[in-house]
């Protein structure tokens, strides 16, 4: 295990930024921290970096307790959401800065800086100052500095959020590969579930200062342990339905009957059923457990897919389908969700596993 938190918490005055977290991140892999704004991603990263000290608990890196060790003495790199570069230095000097501090000779340093600049397509701008660069180039400079340093731990705090959409797409693909060769443990914070999925590796979902789940990205996505994780990892938002257990099985709001597959027995009466927008289908098949009729409020079309916003009872749902569908508002639609795509949560919002 590379980076570990033991009973970590962080409080600033009365505000809890991080609530009691135990976590060990896998070494040498790409880890994504996923959660909405103010869910504690940045606070956690600052504790990882040693920029802030935890209120309780400890941070361990490579088997050593690093709590309280000065930032300068930890071999790490960090890239922020804002474009942070040293304004008085050229791109070359910016990238070279951590190496200069390590007292590398010019001949050792130059090839590394040039290689880093090349990987991030900065070679033509080596002599410019940061304020003479576009936003994308500034952020590439910051990333190159983190890459070249050869740090054991690389922290990327929403580095792509202020960039143009297409540029973001491009860097999103490059980043995991760029850092894969360095052997560093990378932590990447984002608010976008889609980004987490694209980045692959491992994901830790966060909500209200807690890490709700950590594991391989696809496992967390497909088998969230609780409602908070499922919500954090869904874009468009997770569709939700309240259920009650009756003598016959489960019953939804408005007397809706469902053919739920057998779930492990949990001694509670109230449940929440969650299903992702792309699992809410408008064509049925044999495995469907839920059939209902919703009313279209708005349809959004991207050219290849449609987001159909629906109203069912008091709930606002979204169906995300492949293909273009022009549906007028007010139209009634038959909707289907299949059994394998249902997530059932108990009254404590914990996932109820299906019976094997």
């Amino acid at each position, binding site marked *: 295990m590379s980076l570990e938190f033991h009973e970590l918490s962080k409080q600033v005055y009365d505000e809890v930024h991080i609530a009691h977290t135990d976590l060990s991140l896998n070494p040498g892999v790409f880890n994504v921290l996923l959660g909405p704004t103010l869910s504690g991603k940045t606070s956690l990263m600052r504790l990882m970096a040693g920029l802030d000290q935890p209120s309780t608990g400890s941070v361990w890196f490579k088997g050593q307790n690093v709590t309280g060790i000065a930032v300068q003495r930890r071999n790490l790199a960090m890239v922020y959401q*804002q474009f942070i570069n040293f304004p008085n*230095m050229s791109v070359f000097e910016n990238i070279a800065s951590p190496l200069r501090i390590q007292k590398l000779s010019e001949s050792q340093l130059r090839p590394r800086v040039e290689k880093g600049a090349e990987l991030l397509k900065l070679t033509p701008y080596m002599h410019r100052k940061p304020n003479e660069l576009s936003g994308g180039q500034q952020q590439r400079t910051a990333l190159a500095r983190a890459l070249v340093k050869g740090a054991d731990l690389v922290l990327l705090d929403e580095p792509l959020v202020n960039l143009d959409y297409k540029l973001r797409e491009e860097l999103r693909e490059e980043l995991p590969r760029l850092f894969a060769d360095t052997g560093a443990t990378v932590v990447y914070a984002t608010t976008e579930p889609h980004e987490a999925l694209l980045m692959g590796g491992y994901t830790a979902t966060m909500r209200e200062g807690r890490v709700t789940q950590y594991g391989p990205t696809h496992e967390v996505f497909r088998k969230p342990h609780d409602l908070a994780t499922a919500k954090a990892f869904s874009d468009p938002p997770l569709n939700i339905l309240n259920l009650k257990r009756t003598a016959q099985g489960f019953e939804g709001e408005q007397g809706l009957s469902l053919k739920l597959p057998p779930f492990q027995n949990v001694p509670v009466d109230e449940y929440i059923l969650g299903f992702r927008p792309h699992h809410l289908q408008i064509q049925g098949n044999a495995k469907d457990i839920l059939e209902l009729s919703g009313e279209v409020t708005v349809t959004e079309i991207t050219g290849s897919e449609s987001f159909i916003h629906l109203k069912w009872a008091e709930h606002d749902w979204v169906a995300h389908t492949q293909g273009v569908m022009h549906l007028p508002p007010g139209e009634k639609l038959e909707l289907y969700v299949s059994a394998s795509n249902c997530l059932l949560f108990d009254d404590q919002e914990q996932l109820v596993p299906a019976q094997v």
Partner: protein
Amino acid sequence: MKKITWLIPTVYIVFLMMPIYWLVNMSFKTTNEILGSFTLWPNNFTVENYVTIFTDPTWFMGYVNSLTYVTINTIISLLVALPAAYAFSRYRFLGDKHLFFWLLTNRMAPPAVFALPFFQLYSAIGLFDTHIAVALSHCLFNIPLAVWILEGFMSGVPKELDETAYIDGYSFPQFFFKIFIPAIAAGIGVAAFFCFMFSWVELLLAKTLTAVDVKPIAATMTRTVSTAGYELGLLSAAGTLTIVPGAFVIYFVRNYIAKGFALGRL
């Protein structure tokens, strides 16, 4: 609408320039012409007044003295204000929201009140009539001002810049001198400008704390008024020369002046 827009500043500038013009005008006149007739420009153009100033050591040493203590003051003020402003911009502590107000209370007390204690203090420790004495006394109101201006500029630099440097491995002094100071160079320029300005224009303390050796130019001029009668031409020439350093400084920091105030925290 368009016409009024340039008219107001223009009229104002003309108003500002009139007394200055009159001063310059006089400085090129002979005393006889000044007292003898009223002319809008010098009829007998002369640079004699200036020659007198540049050849008489009591005159030009006044300039040297003034510039010396102003420079010393600017340096001391900045050296003290830089760390103080850094603390204010990077850390939160009780009452820092009213920083500006508390710093300003220093300016509320009249220099006249301070003149006497300063006089006694410096006399006691043998600093009386030295450049450093004047420079130190001017720190009283210049340091708060410099702290306030610098704090504004420093708050404009994200604290993530500091952190990036620490993460890169910079120690605090390395970061402060290699990265932070260049990053707020404009702010240092503006703060220096204001220190220079207030030290240069202040007279009461400067006069009280000096006697012979380091008499500032302003005091030399007062002497002219009182002892040599109204040597108006000479006085005007000396006055004109006191405007020159200020004009130079203002020209150098012209692009930062507006910014300097805008960033200050209240």
